[in-house]
């Protein structure tokens, strides 16, 4: 049974994530796999396609067993982090660059995997950035430039990457423009 606190938490979360995109990726299904936040998000963003990624397969099963929910436009998956680069989802993310929304109350014991997945999907970790630069056709060596860790990479880091690329990255001018816009 879903508690009132969960409802409030889900509604507040959905209110904070108003991006207006046609496709979003949501990480985490929440306690017990109820996915109340997904329901709230759908109510506020009709017509938006949603891909939910959840590390715990049992929660996926629980969520999909809800009988009170219309799953049209909602896809739920358990990602394989080690082979993610070859996943068709990765290519779609590269093409459409959707917002990736974290439902942190649902991370629980899988927090580190979810955080890695978030940085991977947003290109904000060394491995994520390398993966997407390869998709762009770039041969930049990110590893030599970025010091990773838990910090989210920014345009400044990408700026270092293109500055260090002696071959001349095709998007280098645009990256340098954006680096100047960082507040």
């Amino acid at each position, binding site marked *: 049974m879903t508690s009132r606190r969960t409802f409030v938490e889900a509604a507040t979360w959905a209110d904070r*994530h108003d*991006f207006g995109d046609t496709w979003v990726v949501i990480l985490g299904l929440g306690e017990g796999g109820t996915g109340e936040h997904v329901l709230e998000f759908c109510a506020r963003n009709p017509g938006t396609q949603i891909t939910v990624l959840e590390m715990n397969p049992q929660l996926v099963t629980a969520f999909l067993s809800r009988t009170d929910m219309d799953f049209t436009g909602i896809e739920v998956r358990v990602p394989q982090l080690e082979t993610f680069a070859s996943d068709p989802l990765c290519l779609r*993310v590269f093409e459409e*660059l*959707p*917002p*990736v*929304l*974290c439902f942190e109350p649902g991370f629980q014991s899988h927090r580190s995997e979810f955080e890695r997945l978030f940085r991977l*999907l*947003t*290109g*904000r970790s060394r491995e*994520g*950035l390398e993966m*997407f630069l390869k998709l*762009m056709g770039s041969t930049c060596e990110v590893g030599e430039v970025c010091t990773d860790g838990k910090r*989210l*990479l*920014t*345009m400044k880091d*990408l700026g270092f990457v293109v*500055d260090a690329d002696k071959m*001349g990255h095709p*998007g*280098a*001018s*645009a*990256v*340098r*423009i*954006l680096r*100047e*816009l*960082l*507040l």
Partner: protein
Amino acid sequence: MTVLSLLRVGDLLMQVPLLRALRREHPDAHLSLVVNNGVERARDLIPEVDSWIVFDRAGLQASLGTAEYHLLRPLRELQGWMLDSFPEPADVLYNFTHNRLSAHLAAAIPARMKFGLRAEGARFAPLENEWMRYLNERFSSDRACLFHYVDLLAGAFDLEVESPMPAESKGRRILLQTTTSTAEKERSPEFWRQLLKRGQEARPDLHWSVLCAPFEVERLSRTFDPKDLLVQGWRELQGTLRETHLLVTLDTSVKHLAALEGVPSFEIGVGSTNPQRTGAYGRGHFFASAKLADETLIDLVLDAVAGRRMLQAQRSDFDAWGYTLACADYGVREHEVERMYWGSLLSGEPRQSAGLIGHDMMRAARTQLEDAASLYGQIKLNVDASLNELRAGRPCESQVILLKNALARTALLPQPIRELFTEVTALAEVGAPNVLGYLGMVVHSMNILAGRLSVRSQFFGLNEKGESRHDRDGNLSEHGPTAS
């Protein structure tokens, strides 16, 4: 032809004389102007521009600052904007902005020729000329900068900017621009209320109004009677300025619009505002430091409204430094000679010919400065003696004689100091009690002058004793006067 102007509305309005110069030089070219979002609201004010390209700076910054967005998302947005906005290379690109962001944009925008600051990879291309270097080194730094922003850009891009007509009153309206984009540059609401009240009492024949943008109505209605508010957008304001006697303003874009319309403005400068660099472009505008007391500022505004020189607006109780600033009717352009000298150097004329360009003027100015330098010492002696007389409580008559002697020698000094001398002498003659205070002002002004003389001496090749360091051919000697 593409022009990058990624600053604020006021900066863009200041650049209009340059856009006009481009239009005169290339009457048939299609002129595209790249501006930050929000600035395109000035579209109706600048008919010289054919198309406006809006750089969505705010949107890109929002993308950059949103952790949920992919790192490459703003990159793709920017690249999409570039493709849509610049499908073909322009013949010429001018970067009027001169900052790092615009330099990288100038590198990315396709054009056959590019002028102004631009990047080459991770570095910057060498600056094209001395004007550009001067702009780069001095305009946004603490170093002395003799030129107005418009003049610097005109030199940097080799554009013939038309000399602005002296500002003249054009009607019976007095407009007060009481707000700016940042609260730090504003004056208290009480000051503006007092100014409006005293203005309406002193000059009921003029129509006093507080300018109010449509979005400011609620805020300004808390300070002013709604009947005193003039609610207008840009286009209407441009029309209103054409029937305006004087605009009293803070450091805002409205003063630049007034300058374009040839309407006099009285700027109250708060903080780091520098009228010589970014004041209303042209002659006939006024500037007073916001450090002055409210009453003093109001007196000065009323004198400007009446067309009296500010010098005559003096009362008795404001300090000498404030007084000097208040006198700075910068339209008078005290630095004309220095500007000529530097202008010829920056334009690439050889040092020798720098002395030949406007040779007569240079020579006359040098003589004048040499004379003034030597006179300064004598005048200072008289003023010091006069001060000593006053301190010793001796009869006023001797002060008057000393001051008159000093006055007789002030013909070569700048007009404001000369007038100050005249007034102090007159006060001493009638035995006014506060002559000592006035003399303090004179001495202070003299000291400022002495500082300027010292600077000018360096420019004009005078050594510390006022002797020329130029030889007979006008070349500068490093070792003092050349033996003849």
